[in-house]
């Protein structure tokens, strides 16, 4: 790993497979320095941030062959044979008192400088032809190499790997034990360790194809999809919240379930790609194909107050481009957002041409701009069960018939309308009441002002109920009106005692002579967005009457008795006003109560435009029609039908709320041609030229018949000419099994990637993948059936010395499990793991206080029953506060696309495994299992637990050490029964729990080896 080497294929000069141009590190002698592979990548990495683009520093462009040949303002870079006289060498060494390059960064090392010097001494020649990075040339199926140890080879994978081992003088490790094999392959394919029973069955199966039968069983397991999906969901940045400050919840789990199902069905990778990127553009898409498009709806969404929503959407589109490029092409398109890519052949124009595919989403503005900011919302669809669909149809058809009924009855209301018009014109006679009693549940003080208004002061609790009593002003009471009085005593001059001057009247009730009167909130002159009058008489404290931002104006709310009350004047009426919403102190602070005996009290509140029609001496046909339409909505004769309709609507709303929804992609239907602006420096506000949707120019072109939309993009990605898609996916699959990709930087196969350890194998697998119809299970079966995969994980002495990172794969992999697998393995070993699949995300044990978002009042509601022990991929993912045990074990926050997780080994991981309540519960459960298995002897219990955790039997020394520990624990908990009580009820339970705790903390328990 001396100088950083890159692998360059010579597109023009290459004869035969691209790999032929590669030379292995060992084959390169220091006397033959190649600029393109040994110097150029380094210069690009270190110098191109200035020396590139339209106006490169000093006129020198180091990113193209032409630029290097031309040199800069100081002339040509190289004087062949004379390093000291060559500008390149002078500047890199800082000779002649000039600033040393790269300016502002660390200089090249002595070794690197020597390489430059050697190259110049050798004549400083550049290779002929076009320089093209290997990964941008379509793979050609390489020949399977010949090897000496031919009988070790089980399939072509082995030949490729063995060839490199033999070249390096390494021998493959022996085949792993059956116990090691079943553990490894079970973890790899379904993500949990095998049970003791499964291990025994495999050990007892002596048929020659026992291993293959095992592999087939695992590939067919429904849990296969759960294991595979975890990695994909990191790429798809799938989460259950929107991210950023507000970080509200979203429902997207039907997409997560789609991924699991697709893997289980072994959906070919080309279909898998097309459906996720463009399922909505397929002819007559199925519900499932629409759900698949959730891939690119997993972007974050910034709903913070004051965010420029157009800009937020722009960022979403940017993320769709970069994530799509990383996921399928394994390149970092994001660099080209602001400038042409420094290393890879992607221009800014390429970037925005790609973005054009995503630049016209169908979106709606949400909310009323006059009240608050509007937010953008993209489409979501309902994913109902069959039963839910049926119920919905029933409700909708009932609603239709009620609506019809309303329409037909409305035709017979002429007479009533004339009466209503008269009432509206003449006005309603209201009388202000003088209360005989005023009471606040919380103890606020009431003051009756000279104008009969009521002023509230004193204690101002978060919630309050007022009871106002008054005598019947006449023998008849048909309606009550609450009139708010704006008052400078309150915030914003409002009538409310809240920090905004607003109120929320969540319920009003009326009694006359002690008898509850059914009432209807029939009119108000202003209602805050999101509130409706029906809420004033229902039982939901969050619905009701409010009037932000119009707090500083007087408002009226009319409550009509459904049947006017007839009572003696001496009788007492009692009005109860409840302020019980979540909004603190939204209590009314200054108001009047008015009453009337007149009918049609609601006619007193009429919108200005209708009032104008009423008052006009003449009426046009259109005006008459408008009046009629308006009346339909206030006609008392239709009250009950309207109530029925509202009730059906509420039922429908509740049903709809219970139907899962999911986020889907949809383009603006009005847009025919997909274009995007280039944005100078990547800034939202700096719009430059408009470009058409297209794929990067340096890669294979789009098929001529492919539509220039997401569907065309998806088809191009999975076309056989695309040099990257298959390589990227097989490389990621390889990493799943071996802990390291053939190209270690699985996230980047561009020019700056790490060199492939087995380039021919990568291309063989990529071509195999395309030839076999993009069949993932088939590739995975090849891998796990290979001799390479089946090796013992113990390195030979020589491997330790010459290949300590096991790049040449002379022994099996041994890596710590990823976060979710650690938890799943612990649950599985303890017998707690639930087999339940799919559905809404769950909330397993999490320490209190992890969720403390500034805005969303959402709480972590710990799940019940088996949902506590579901596979980890069903755990609710909150982006700003991810599940702590997962982050401790290197899982990301799903805020952006992550291909490769760094694997660390930290004390916080130790603490989690020792003490996390969820994991300690598993220790108790495992303890219980061992106690049962220990019916005959403690040894048997220990062995059972050890096998459940590590998939093998303990050796004598291990067994002895655990027995000693068990004895110590027995002594401890017999002496301290109170401690035992806290752990597991009794001493024996505590002892076995602590043995469980020990076994679950073994390095081996959380390692795939």
């Amino acid at each position, binding site marked *: 790993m001396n100088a950083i080497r890159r692998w360059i294929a010579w597109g023009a000069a290459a004869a035969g497979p691209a790999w032929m141009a590669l030379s292995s590190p060992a084959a390169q002698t220091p006397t033959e320095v190649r600029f393109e592979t040994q110097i150029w990548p380094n210069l690009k990495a270190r110098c191109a941030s200035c020396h590139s683009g339209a106006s490169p520093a000093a006129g020198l462009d180091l990113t193209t062959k032409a630029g290097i040949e031309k040199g800069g303002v100081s002339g040509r870079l190289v004087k062949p044979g004379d390093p000291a006289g060559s500008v390149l060498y002078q500047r890199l060494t800082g000779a002649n008192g000039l600033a040393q390059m790269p300016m502002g960064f660390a200089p090249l090392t002595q070794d690197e400088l020597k390489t430059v010097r050697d190259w110049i001494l050798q004549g400083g020649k550049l290779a002929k032809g076009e320089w093209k990075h290997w990964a941008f040339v379509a793979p050609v199926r390489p020949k399977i190499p010949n090897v000496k140890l031919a009988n070790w080879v089980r399939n072509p994978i082995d030949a490729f790997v063995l060839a490199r081992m033999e070249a390096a003088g390494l021998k493959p490790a022996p085949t792993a034990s059956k116990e090691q094999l079943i553990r490894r392959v079970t973890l790899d394919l379904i993500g949990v360790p095998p049970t003791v029973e499964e291990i025994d069955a495999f050990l007892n199966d002596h048929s020659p194809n026992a291993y293959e039968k095992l592999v087939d069983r695992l590939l067919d397991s429904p849990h296969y999809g759960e294991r595979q999906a975890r990695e994909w969901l990191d790429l798809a940045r799938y989460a259950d919240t929107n991210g950023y400050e507000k970080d509200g919840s979203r429902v997207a789990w039907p997409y997560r379930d789609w991924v699991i199902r697709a893997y289980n069905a072994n959906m070919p990778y080309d279909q898998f790609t097309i459906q996720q990127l463009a399922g909505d553009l397929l002819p007559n898409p199925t519900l499932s194909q629409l759900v698949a498009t959730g891939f690119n709806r997993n972007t974050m969404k910034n709903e913070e107050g004051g*965010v420029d929503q157009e800009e937020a959407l722009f960022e979403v589109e940017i993320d769709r481009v970069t994530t799509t490029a990383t996921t399928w092409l394994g390149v970092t398109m994001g660099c080209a957002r602001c400038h042409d890519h420094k290393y890879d052949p992607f221009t800014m124009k390429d970037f925005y041409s790609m973005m054009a595919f995503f630049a016209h989403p169908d979106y709606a503005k949400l909310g009323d701009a006059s009240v608050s900011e509007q937010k953008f919302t993209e489409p979501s669809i309902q994913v109902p069960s069959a039963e839910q669909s049926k119920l919905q149809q029933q409700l909708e058809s009932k609603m239709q018939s009620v609506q019809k009924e309303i329409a037909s009855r409305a035709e017979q209301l002429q007479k009533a309308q004339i009466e209503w018009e008269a009432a509206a014109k003449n006005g309603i006679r209201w009388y202000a009441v003088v209360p005989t009693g005023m009471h606040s549940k919380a103890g606020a003080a009431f003051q009756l002002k000279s104008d009969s208004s009521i002023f509230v002061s004193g204690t101002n609790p978060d919630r309050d109920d007022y009871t106002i009593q008054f005598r019947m002003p006449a023998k008849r009471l048909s309606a009550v009106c609450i009139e708010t009085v704006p008052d400078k005593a309150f*915030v914003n001059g409002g009538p409310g005692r809240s920090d905004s001057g607003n109120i929320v009247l969540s319920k009003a009730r009326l009694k006359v002579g002690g008898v509850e009167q059914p009432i209807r909130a029939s009119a108000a002159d202003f209602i805050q967005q999101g509130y409706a009058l029906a809420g004033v008489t229902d039982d939901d404290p969050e619905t009701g009457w409010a009037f932000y931002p119009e707090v500083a104006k007087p408002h009226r709310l009319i409550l009509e008795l459904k049947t006017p009350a007839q009572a003696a004047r001496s009788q007492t009426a009692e009005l109860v006003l409840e302020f019980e919403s979540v909004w603190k102190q939204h209590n009314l602070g200054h108001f009047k109560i008015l009453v009337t005996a007149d009918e049609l009290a609601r006619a007193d509140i009429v919108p200005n435009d209708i009032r104008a029609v009423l008052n006009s001496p003449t009426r046009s046909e259109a005006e008459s029609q408008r009046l009629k339409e308006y009346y339909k909505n206030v006609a008392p004769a239709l009250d009950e039908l309207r109530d029925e309709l509202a009730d059906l609507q509420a039922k429908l709303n509740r049903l709809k709320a219970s139907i899962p929804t999911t986020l889907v992609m949809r383009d603006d239907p009005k847009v025919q041609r997909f274009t995007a602006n280039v944005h100078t420096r990547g800034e939202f506000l700096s719009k430059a030229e408009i470009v058409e949707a297209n794929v990067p120019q340096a890669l294979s072109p789009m098929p001529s018949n492919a539509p220039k939309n997401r569907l065309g993009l998806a088809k191009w990605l999975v076309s056989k000419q695309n040099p990257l898609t298959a390589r990227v996916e097989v490389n990621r699959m390889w990493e799943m099994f071996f802990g390291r990709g053939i190209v270690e930087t699985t996230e980047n196969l561009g020019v700056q990637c790490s060199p492939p350890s087995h380039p021919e194998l990568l291309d063989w697998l990529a071509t195999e993948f395309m030839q076999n119809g993009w069949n993932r299970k088939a590739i995975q079966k090849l891998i796990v059936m290979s001799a390479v995969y089946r090796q013992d994980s113990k390195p030979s002495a020589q491997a330790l010395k010459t290949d300590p*990172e096991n790049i040449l794969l002379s022994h099996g992999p041994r890596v710590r499990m990823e976060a979710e697998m650690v938890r799943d393995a612990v649950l599985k070993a303890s017998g707690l793991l639930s087999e339940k699949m799919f559905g809404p995300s769950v909330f397993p044990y999490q*320490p209190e206080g992890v969720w403390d978002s500034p805005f969303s009042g959402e709480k972590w509601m710990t799940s019940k029953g088996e949902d506590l022990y579901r596979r980890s991929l069903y755990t609710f993912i909150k982006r700003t506060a991810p599940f702590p045990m997962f982050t401790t074990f290197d899982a990301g926050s799903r*805020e952006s696309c992550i291909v490769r997780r760094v694997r660390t080994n930290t004390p916080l991981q130790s603490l989690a495994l020792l003490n996390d309540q969820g994991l300690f519960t598993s220790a108790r459960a495992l303890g219980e299992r061992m106690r049962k298995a220990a019916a005959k002897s403690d040894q048997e219990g220990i062995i059972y637990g050890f096998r459940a955790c590590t998939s093998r039997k303990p050796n004598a020394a291990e067994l002895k050490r655990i027995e000693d*520990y068990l004895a110590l624990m027995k002594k401890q908990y017999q002496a301290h029964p109170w401690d035992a009580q806290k752990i597991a009820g009794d001493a024996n339970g505590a002892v076995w729990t602590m043995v469980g705790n020990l076994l679950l*903390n073994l390095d081996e328990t959380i390692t795939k*080896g």
Partner: protein
Amino acid sequence: MNELRELTRRTLLKQIGFGVGAAALTALLNEDLFAQQAAFPNFAPKAKRIIYLFMAGAPSQLDLWDPKPVLSQHDGQDCPEEYLKGERFAFIKGVPKLLASPHKFVQAGESGQWISTLLPHTAEIVDDIAVIRSMHTDQFNHAPAQIFMNTGNQLPGRPSMGSWLTYGLGSESRDLPGFVVLISGDSNPDGGKCLWSSGFLPSVYQGVEFRSKGDAVLFVSNPDGVTDRVRREMLDALKELNAMKLKETLDPEIDTRISQYELAYRMQSSVPELMDISKEPASIHEMYGTSPGEKSFANNCLLARRLIERGVRFVQLYHRGWDHHGTGEFEDLTHALPRRCKEVDQASAALVKDLKQRGMLDDTIVIWGGEFGRTPMKEGRGGSQLPGRDHHPRAFSLWMAGGGIKGGVSLGSTDDLGYNVVEDPVSVHDLHATILHLMGIDHTRLTYKYLGRQFRLTDVYGNVVGKLLK
């Protein structure tokens, strides 16, 4: 086992626990992959550690640090159009009115620095602090601006400053994380936990949140009924069993895991000891305004001092609730701002004084500030009459003290209205470059290769602000 330990790079990288930084370590070991990186520090550092008091929500510079008499004269007048052309605001619509500060400023200390009367305790330390009045940022919404302030980029995913520093320099503590986060105020800051994420750096460099309720560090307490003695016996057995496996597999990861369990065990006693401030003398409690067991900014300030005393490299305090728009008394300049100032003033000043009296201020940097500034104009959302200001990225103030920073100075200035910076502008990248410089790091050299390129905290920007340095 020692031979084994030297076998692989990954062991060495992971051997560190919370110890030496990987960048420093790999450089020391002349590791090829990082060969271009010099050892850290690159030069003699002025400071060894940092306490960053992050005022999430963005305190108003015009009411605390940057007095504007001309603005006061024009109170209530329309904001001149030249300022509004092409500007975007979070909430202001139409032509807003200029808003004078409802609070008074005084000159304090020998240096005579201007400071609001809302910060009487901070006024006592003005001779030790440098007020930067010319900060500016690109972001005008809280979450992106906080992420930018902490990671140098507005989108989540990059390592935070504390992660970069511990990656480069490591921690001087044997049994505490190098980067610790403490939170007080209404709730977590707007940007969420990515503010102290290690991004693409290994997670060992992420900020560890020390909580005021429950376990200070997640999972640090043994389950009920598991005594220290039981834990020790369990760990002894675990160590021996893991060692047997190590001998068999020769996998150095196991060796690392064994040491991490030992470190975890030490944390089980060092963390509770650290968090227990009850044994601090009464004079200290009086100075900070602390009372043991409370979730308060004051307690966190005292904890910050205790953490750096124990070798922690970077301590960051978040105090949320500075977003004074004026839509209600809970977030305006006349009611809410004074309350918030009261919560932090005494303890912030006490921290600086305490460090000074212990001789630690010389090599500890203290930073106080938010993510952006506030407008010279009144926001008046929904017709609100209460004084409040909208988000303002073009100019804001922040103070620094100790660790090679000049005391008693104000750097930079804004125009008469406090709208734009007119002298010595300091960008977020400049601030980062300066902080790294004080820690002995050339900000262009602290890099990490990811997605095919070298990343820096300062991206491709940043200049050290020489005028701030002693």
